[in-house]
């Protein structure tokens, strides 16, 4: 089983009041020096079978039609390599 991660973020020009609310709370909690926060969504997909180009193309289509609304959101698809799996 391989894991593919889809990160969905509001486009930069779209107001993100949730991110702003988090950012405004930070100094109150003693966390200084954060000038901006934007809040997004992360989908972790456990994929059966190999994550080849065809599988990734299908996931990109899924992200474009369903996971993200591309009117307001951008998305990035990447394969999540398990820790310590490097050669």
């Amino acid at each position, binding site marked *: 089983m391989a894991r593919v991660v889809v990160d969905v973020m*509001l486009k930069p*020009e*779209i*107001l993100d*009041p*949730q991110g702003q*609310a988090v950012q405004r709370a930070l100094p109150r909690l003693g966390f200084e020096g954060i000038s901006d926060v934007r809040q997004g969504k992360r989908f972790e997909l456990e994929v059966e079978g190999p994550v080849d180009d065809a599988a990734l193309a299908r996931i990109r289509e899924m992200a474009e039609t*369903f*996971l993200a*609304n591309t*009117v*307001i959101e951008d998305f990035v698809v990447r394969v999540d390599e398990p820790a310590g799996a490097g050669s």
Partner: protein
Amino acid sequence: MTARVGVITFPGTLDDRDTQRAVRIAGAEAVPLWHKDKDLKQVDAVVLPGGFSYGDYLRAGAISRFSPVMETVIEQAKGGLPVLGICNGFQVLTETHLLPGAMLRNNHLHFICRDQKLRVENAGTAWTADYTAGQEISIPLKNIDGRYVADERTLDELEAEGRVAFRYLDGNPNGSLRDIAGITNAAGNVVGLMPHPEHAVEPLIGAGGTDGLGFFTSILKKLVNA
């Protein structure tokens, strides 16, 4: 012949019964439709009522957009079937791209519930013919995902083509761009708005006024004259 107006119920829809009632008060037959119905039971028009279809999981309206009933609605709306989306229904219509733009969390992050003054900007749609352009009405508003956004080019296009159907008056309740409360497609058969006309059709209840009834009498008149 009585006009048949379908009212769709998704899991999580709240305002289907009020909408059916509004349709009946206007003088049409309300036809309940279920989200799994592929067949629209020969209705003459469809209303997507308010609520939280599929729990608003993912994004408001995003999952309902792929329901069997919506496949048929999308196809027939493109062929001219009158479709009205109220609140969650409006969110569904933007997710289907039958209407442009998208709906986002209110800019102040609070759920808002109040009587909302609107100006009817376009009285030429299938759902607004019983109003006059410029008329001011007051109907209830209740939502947390009511902030209408679209890119500048789309907004300019909507304005230029008179497709901003309703604008908020006396304060913008959610940060919607250009105070937009509702829009229509180019053909005027598909209309979406955030406030709830179905809650203002009887003098005794709701907002205490009947400013919302015009939506349902408009469509009836259009269907009977068609």
